[in-house]
């Protein structure tokens, strides 16, 4: 990246804190790349096994952890999508809430007006369509925005788009239920009982899917192209990368993931209101999660989602009303003292190993 005006030159270099912890963790991690990958694979598998078997010895349908993890997964899917765009492609999208809401409303509308004639519970047809609709929107919006705008301007373009979409749904009148959300879904499929256990499993599966999609996208040639764009767009373009194509691709995938999360959340709400599904929290919380966990890493959004929602959940319980204040303080502290996020500590580990793990 080129140096910009506004950068105060002598202060650019900056110690990344957390080195001591990094040094300690560093001794636990194997040095060569293949084995480190195996360790991460093990950690991932352990997490998947833990979450998949949790319902066997814990009542997720009625216990608090069920709804807790369901929400964490839903936010985490959106966060993982944002991570793909911001962390790997370097474009800050501020329109994720629009994609989330569009996904939720695609499911709700198709279901309510029974357009596809597939009335299953967690209907795969609806869910796929709810992923496709935001992706199409992302492509339509992305073509003019991404071809002409960069950096801040792209962020504000997506913000504006998100606002327009949510206003359209707010004013949708009879079709969308309007601001009061009159779209009550009463047509439950026959024989289906509302059970959070199914929500838990579906959101877990989608969370795994989202992680795998982002992992395989970023570890393939596509990911290489995305990272090249993040580091230096002009250089990437001059090496024959179709910058616009890859940017739109990652933007659309992120939108599809947000739409999927919205679709699942719609099956939980059963009563989607534009106020709820287009709420700013679906934009800011995933961003906070990704940033706190570590942008541009696969585990980052998940670590962040757990930590942030943990704070929100227990903060709401013990300091009602104050938890957004606490979250605000935490965002500021994290950005001030460890801008690379919690996974930045892990990054230090890697770097320390490369340097022969000498203490700082």
């Amino acid at each position, binding site marked *: 990246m080129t140096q910009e005006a506004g950068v105060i030159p002598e202060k650019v270099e900056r110690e990344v804190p957390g080195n001591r912890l990094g040094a300690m963790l560093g001794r636990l991690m194997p040095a060569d790349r293949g084995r480190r990958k195996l360790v991460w694979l093990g950690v991932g598998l352990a997490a998947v096994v833990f979450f998949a078997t949790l319902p066997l010895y814990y009542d997720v349908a009625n216990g608090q952890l069920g709804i807790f993890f369901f929400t964490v997964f839903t936010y985490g899917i959106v966060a993982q999508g944002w991570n793909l765009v911001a962390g790997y492609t370097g474009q800050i999208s501020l329109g994720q809430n629009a994609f989330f809401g569009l996904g939720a409303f695609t499911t709700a509308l198709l279901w309510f007006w029974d357009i596809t004639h597939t009335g299953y519970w967690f209907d795969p047809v609806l869910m796929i369509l709810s992923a496709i609709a935001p992706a199409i929107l992302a492509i339509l919006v992305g073509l003019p*925005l991404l071809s002409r705008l960069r950096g801040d301007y792209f962020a504000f373009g997506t913000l504006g788009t998100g606002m327009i979409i949510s*206003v359209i749904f707010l004013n949708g009148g009879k079709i969308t239920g309007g601001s009061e959300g009159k779209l009550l879904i009463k047509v439950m499929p026959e024989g289906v009982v509302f059970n959070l256990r199914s929500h838990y499993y579906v959101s877990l599966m989608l969370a795994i899917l989202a992680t795998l999609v982002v992992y395989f996208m970023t570890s393939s040639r596509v990911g290489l192209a995305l990272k090249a764009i993040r580091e230096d767009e002009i250089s990437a373009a001059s090496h024959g990368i179709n910058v616009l194509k890859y940017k739109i691709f990652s933007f659309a995938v992120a939108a599809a993931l947000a739409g999927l999360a919205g679709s699942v959340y719609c099956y939980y709400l059963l009563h989607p209101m534009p106020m709820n599904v287009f709420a700013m929290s679906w934009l800011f919380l995933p961003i906070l999660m990704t940033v706190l966990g570590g942008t541009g890493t696969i585990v980052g959004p998940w670590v962040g989602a757990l930590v942030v929602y943990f704070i929100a959940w227990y903060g709401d319980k013990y300091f009602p009303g104050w938890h957004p204040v606490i979250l605000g303080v935490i965002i500021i502290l994290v950005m001030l003292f460890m*801008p690379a996020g919690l996974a930045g500590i892990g990054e230090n580990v890697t770097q320390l190993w490369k340097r022969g793990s000498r203490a700082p």
Partner: protein
Amino acid sequence: MTSLLQVVINGILLGSMYGIAAAGLSLIFGTMRIIFLAQGTVIVFFAFVVYWLFVKANIDPYLCLLIVVPFAFLVGLGLFYALFMRAAALEDKNVSLLIAVGLMYLIENAILKVWSASPRGLDISYSSAVISGWGLRIPWLRVALFGLALVSGLVVYLFLQKTRLGMAVRAAAEDMEATTLQGINSGWVCAVSFAVGIGLAGVAGVGMATVYSFDYQFGFTFALKALIALSLGGIGNVFGALAGGLILGVIENLTAYYLSISWIEAVSYGVFILVLIFLPQGLFGKRGVVKKA
């Protein structure tokens, strides 16, 4: 015809609020290259301060300017040195953007806790005074608001053009690196422009307290409006930002008049996106000076 004129005048007068806020954003963006997304929430905070001064101490809102603006200036200096000094020096502008988001969250919810969620408005003795003539009715408070915007714009303009510090701020906005090499303390320049930006937020807070009914959530929407005004007027131009605010006010009032109030947001964001795509230097910005972000 008269009613159309009335709508346009109302738009201009109310839009001057956006103008003040956008001028503040423009100053902060000029030197630090960050969009201070918490600007609207800070304005709401100062509006609540004015509300308090009015209700508890019975101080006239316009007299409050003497208290609120210096206070806002100090708050700006404090915020800069506590939060933004190190982040502003980083190349990654997302850090500052996210600090601003965190600050917004913090202030918004602190306001909610301290002053509760109910919307407030000042009931000043002269709040119903109206100028009328030629079939038009213009409330005095809105005219005062417009005057406030013009005067604060002029003060900032004179500061930028006539003082040495203002010259340093302008130089820093052109090229921070070269400015630093000339021996200008870039940290202090950033601090001053940030503080002046927050001072303008104080002025806007007084304006908001007198004209609007406001609550804790108003800030974010307002920051976005200021952003639209800024993009309309072109970044790095105080009077451009003011004019952008006026134009946005007119657009909003015309939308409310011809369509309906609920479409205001959609239309103003639509204009915003079109401007971003087709006129990124704004209506009053110089062509070819927009730095690639």
